[in-house]
Structures are given as C-alpha cells and as structure tokens.
C-alpha cells in the first residue's frame, strides 16, 4: 500500500513559506543568469493576471502588481527537508519521486495500526504538512503510479480501494502519464484525451502502432503497472563517524584509549551489521589551542576485530604523539568487504594478517618505520641500491628449487668505515682498520664504478677485493677508494 503526497507548485510554496506576505499577492519566480532570466514558476494569482512559465523578466515585470523574485534553491531545500522529516514520521520506507519536486511516496503497509485506516493516515499526513506551512495532495493506493497520478492531479485526499485503480485513473488527463511528445501527439491525433480512453484500446493493437512503450502506457492507464520501490537509506559510509568532545584537556594517551575503544566498538558494530569490515580509520584529535592532529591507520586487510584496530591506533599514536593536550576526538572509518581466504592444511606457514599488522606496527615503534619491511632492489648502477617496502608476503606458493650454487654473502658496513691503506705499485699491501694492521695476502681489482656524472650526486670509486690477514685469521673484504674525497673505506666483509 502506497501513500503519495505531492505539494503542487512546489517552488512557489517553498518561496511563500519563508515570506508569508506573498501568499495573497501575485508573484513569479525567475530563474537563470541575468539578464536572460525567465519565469520559472508563478502562483495562481499571477497566472490569472497573464504570467506564463518561460516568460522573460522584462515581460513579467511589465505586469502591474506582480512581484518578481529570484528562485532560491535554499528555500526549496529547506522545504524539502521538512517534507522528508514528515514522511519519515509516517513510514520507515520512503522514496523520493524525482520527476515531481517535493513529492514523496511512502510504503504504509502495517502503519495503519499506528495511524488508523488509510483515510485517517492520509488526513493526518496532510494536516501535518499544512501545519508546516505547505499544502499537499495525498493519495493512497495499492499501485504506486496510481497514487502518484492522483496526488499530482486531484487536490485533497484521494483513497483508491483495492481493485478500483482503473476507475480512479479513468477521468485523469493523459498528461499524468508523462508521455513523450511524439506519443502525446499521436494519441491526441487519435482523439484520446483521458487515461480511460487509452485503457479502452486493445493492448496488442496499441503496441503494434506505437511500439513497446504502448504496453507501459496501456498498463499505466489501467493502473496495474508495477513499481519497484527504492527506499531512501542514509549513506552507510557517512554513518561510520563518531565524535566526542572532552570536558577537560587530556594529555595521557592511555585514558584516551577507553574512549577510542568505545568509539571503535560502535563503528565496528555498524559495519558488521552490513557485513562489512573496517578498511581504514581516520582519527582527528582536536588539540588545545585550536590545532588538529590527524592520523590514518590502514590495515593491509579489512578487519573486524576491535582489539587489533585499537592496538594499531595506539601504536600509531605512540609513534606520532600529538603536540598538545587533546580536547576532542573524531573517528571516521571506511568500510570494505571483509577479507576471506581459503586456508589449507598443507600450505606453508604464513603470518596471520591481523597479527602481522600489529606486529609491524610494534616493530615500527621499536625500530623506526623505515627500518622494518622487505628489501626491494632498485634498477640502478650503484651497487647495494635498494629500498624498503612494507612487508606483505604473497600467498604461500612453493617455487622451484634453485640449481644455482651457494652464493658468497657480503656484509655491508653501514655506515662506511674509513681505513688507512698502504699502497705498493698502486696495489694495497697493508690495511689499518679499527686500530689494527692487516697484511693484504691477495687482492683483486681495481673495479672502477661510477654514476650520476650528470648531476651533483655524482659518485665514483675503485673497488678491491682483498684478503686481510692478521696472525692466523684471514678475512676477505671489499675495500674501495673514493677519488673525490681521496679516502679509503671498507665497503663490506665477505662472510
């Protein structure tokens, strides 16, 4: 069962609601950029004086006694908000009819126990709208389109008993069906003026003459064209926000965690109710002095676990603490479909995603965010060029065993250690490193490498692989000479 209310001439009603003095005077609303403004809407008094829609501003102003006003969308928006609020009080399922401004369709199935029968409900609804300063027609029918057509054409309250839809539609003008100009012209040329006359046609003959649109028009005119309702629902993502103002500035993070836990719980419950998970959390802390401290926590995978999310927030705040005491908190969340994975008994061991997030956050706090992750080699001529990327192991897949021989590892000296080198015939013969003298037993080199000669970051060096001996111990190192700074240093040790 649908109830539709339609405020006729909605822009005019919205304008006169804010200025009641206009109600008894003829006035027209102008729309468009000056000076090409045209009459967009006019009240009944103005229309009776000769004002027509689409008239130019100068034409409209030439009528004596007619007030011309610019159309203000804010007035229409505020009137629409009022109508929406009224519709929400009568039914939880409402739909905005976009073709008719200010018109709402309500699913009133089951609402009669609260508001009485259909007549009482429609009357109460109309009275409520009138008390808000607007006038609306209300129609109730089992068919959505019938209720809409009646509300847009018949003033007052119209109730259509079940099975009487065709009768109710019979005397309505064809214009209620929102015909396309081509079809309207065709039907007018046939002498069809009302819905009843259209419904009297055989359906198949109508389809044969004006195409598939004929089926819809015929069904609409008989009042049996079905409608799939799309109720207005509040934006889910916008609902994932929690805000708290504190009475006293708080400096200790631990006490904030109690509030954050409550806020995270509430947001997560909302997300879970829609079978969603939290993909990111944005925390905005209002600080004493008017500043804001904003942090965003993005788990690698959407989470549905409050403890993990809270731990990530805590670790992030401990790593990046706010600069002043906190006077307010706002937590915004972004939802995503929860992560699902097919586990296997025989798959290799892999860290659990939720735990791994917390672990990496803890490690970031302990060692520094740039010192935790996976190494990634950079396509660069400079040896040992790499960058750190976040650790995100791919799904466990067994790869082919390597047939390559075991490789010698080089242990890099970070930072580079400056050494003294004794040369003989341009080859190193002794090395002074860490207050100890090493004899060079064998050396290979020099390997000259350079790069970035076109920029200020130019680098070059001569590298040597040397066997350094002190007593019985022998170590193999890579030493290098930097011609720019004229210094020798240890690049690393082979181990």
């Amino acid at each position, binding site marked *: 069962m649908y109830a539709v209310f339609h405020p006729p001439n909605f822009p005019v009603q919205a304008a006169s609601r804010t200025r009641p003095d206009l109600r008894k005077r003829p006035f027209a609303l102008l729309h468009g950029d000056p000076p090409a403004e045209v009459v967009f809407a006019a009240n009944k008094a103005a229309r009776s004086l000769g004002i027509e829609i689409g008239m130019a501003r100068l034409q409209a102003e030439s009528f004596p006694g007619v007030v011309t006003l610019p159309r203000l969308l804010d007035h229409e928006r505020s009137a629409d908000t009022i109508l929406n609020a009224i519709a929400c009080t009568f039914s939880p399922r409402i739909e905005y009819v976009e073709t008719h401004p200010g018109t709402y369709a309500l699913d009133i199935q089951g609402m009669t126990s609260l508001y009485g029968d259909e007549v009482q409900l429609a009357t109460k609804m109309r009275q409520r709208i009138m008390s808000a300063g607007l006038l609306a027609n209300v129609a109730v029918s089992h068919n959505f389109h019938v209720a809409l057509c009646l509300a847009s054409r018949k003033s007052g309250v119209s109730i259509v008993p079940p099975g009487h839809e065709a009768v109710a539609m019979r005397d309505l003008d064809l214009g209620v069906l929102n015909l396309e100009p081509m079809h309207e012209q065709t039907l007018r040329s046939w002498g069809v003026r009302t819905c009843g006359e259209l419904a009297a046609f055989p359906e198949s003959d109508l389809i044969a003459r004006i195409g598939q649109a004929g089926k819809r028009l015929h069904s609409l005119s008989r009042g049996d064209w079905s409608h799939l309702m799309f109720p207005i629902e509040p934006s889910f993502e916008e609902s994932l926000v929690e805000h708290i103002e504190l009475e006293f500035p708080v400096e200790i993070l631990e006490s904030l965690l109690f509030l954050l836990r409550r806020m995270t719980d509430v947001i997560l419950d909302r997300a879970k109710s829609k079978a969603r998970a939290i993909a990111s959390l944005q925390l905005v802390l209002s600080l004493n002095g008017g500043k804001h401290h904003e942090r965003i926590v993005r788990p690698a995978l959407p989470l549905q676990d409050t403890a993990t999310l809270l731990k990530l927030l805590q670790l992030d705040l401990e790593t990046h603490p706010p600069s002043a005491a906190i006077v307010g908190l706002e937590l915004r969340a972004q939802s995503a479909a929860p992560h699902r994975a097919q586990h296997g008994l025989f798959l290799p*061991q892999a860290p659990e995603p939720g735990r791994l997030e917390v672990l990496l956050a803890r490690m970031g706090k302990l060692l520094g965010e740039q*010192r935790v992750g996976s190494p990634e080699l950079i396509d660069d001529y400079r040896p040992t060029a790499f960058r750190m990327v976040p650790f995100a192991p791919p799904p466990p897949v067994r790869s082919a065993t390597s047939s390559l021989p075991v*490789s010698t590892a080089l242990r890099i000296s970070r930072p580079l250690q400056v050494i003294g080198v004794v040369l003989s015939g341009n080859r190193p013969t002794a090395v002074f490193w860490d207050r100890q003298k090493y004899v060079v037993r064998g050396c290979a080199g020099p390997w000259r490498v350079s790069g970035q000669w076109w920029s200020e970051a130019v680098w070059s060096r001569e590298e040597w692989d040397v066997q350094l001996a002190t007593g019985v111990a022998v170590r193999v190192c890579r030493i290098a000479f930097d011609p720019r700074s004229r210094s020798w240093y240890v690049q690393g040790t*082979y181990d």
Partner: protein
Amino acid sequence: MSSASAIRLQVESKLAQRVPAALSLKIRQAPELFETGIAEVDAALNGGIPRGSITEVAGAASTGKTSFGLSAIAAITRSGAACAWIDVSDALSPESAAAAGIELKRLLWLRTTGERKQKVTDRPWSRLEQALKATDLLLQSGGFAAIVLDMSDVLPQHTIRIPLATWYRFRLAAEQARTALIFLSQAPCASSCAALALRCEPMCVRSFSSHGETALFESQNYTLVRERNRHGNSPFLQKKPSVRAEWSAETPWSRVR
C-alpha cells in the same frame, strides 16, 4: 589390575592437573627439518636445521655464517613460507640475499639502529636489546617459518651478557611457534638451549684466481663443524653423519664466467 599399575594410575590421576601423564612413556616425534640448500651441510646435519628449535652458528668473520644463513632462508622462502632477518649491525646486503635465491617479498628485514628518539646511543647493547625484543615479538606473533638473529658483528663479551633466561624463553617460544630460530654470532651464547650448535672454522685460504688475466675473487671454501645435534641421535639411523662439512660458495659474478 596389578598393584603397580594401580599405584601408577593413582599417581598419574593425582598429578594430572600439574603434569599430564606423568609416568607414561612419551614417544618423541622426529623433528621436522628445513633443508639448508647446501648438500654437504644437509648431509652432516642429517637433513637440515630443525624446526621449532634453536640453531646456533658461531664463528669469526669470513667463515661463512651469513652465506649459510642466507642459503637456509632462501630454501625456506622458496617453499612459500615467510622468514625474518633481525639485523643487529644492519649489515645485510639485499643483493647478496637476492643472489642467494631468497624471495625478498617473503623476507621481513628488521634493522636495528643506534639512533632512536634523537639520542645517539651507538653502544652495541642498545642494538642487542632492540634485536632481542624484536625476536620476542616475532616469536609471540608466530607465522614465521624461520627467524635469523644476526649478531655476527657483536663482540662475544656483549653476547655473553645476555641472560640465559632469554634463551630459555626463546627456546619455548620457538617450539610453540614451530619456528626455526637461527643465531649467527662470533661465539656460542645460547649454551644448552640450542638444539643444534654449529661452529664455522677459519677457512683454508684460497688465492684469488687469475687465469692469466686480472686476479678475480671467485669462490670461498668454508668448514662447518657440528658441535651438538640434540635431534641427531636417531636409533633408526644406520650410518652416523660426519661431524665436519666442507662446502664452497661462489661469488655472483663468477657464475657469469
């Protein structure tokens, strides 16, 4: 039921809360082993390094500890498992890791630092503290098939100061997490907590090859001595494995030649 069985049952039921099945014979499971990727070492270790236990590799510089560690991690990451490398001296070369065959995306590299919170503390102990805490966190988190704690550049006088309780805790945590915990150090420090203790001996010096041209550092010979292998005394083993394993590692550029 005989009186001995009755007494045994009575004792076991009394102790059930504290020690389950106190007097029953426990069947010890053969440990799961990870191959190290070095055939000679695997043969000496009777299959590889044990999972859920501590493996300690000790030796001086240039004795092949890092090459051994990288080779073992490479074999484990190739099996699809995730590994971690805790780098006390920030000395790991990603190029060497890639050359060893490690799937870098499966390797979590933790680089300790002496400069945190604007306070320069270049003492090795602060780095060691960070590394030990990181190891603790990794073991508690679980999910890593192998964790390498690289203390190769830390002097023995510092590693010896680590309390024994730490190693006991690590041993239990590694067992529960089913993680192969590998220590690389200059001198043994985990004592009896290590199920497998290996010693890297100073190499026999191999001169750089010249082939009549410029000398080139091509390969290195290493020796690994098995000091202790708690899981190695299997009654089913017919032939006792050798205590020493000699292996060689090549430089990446020698593969091109």
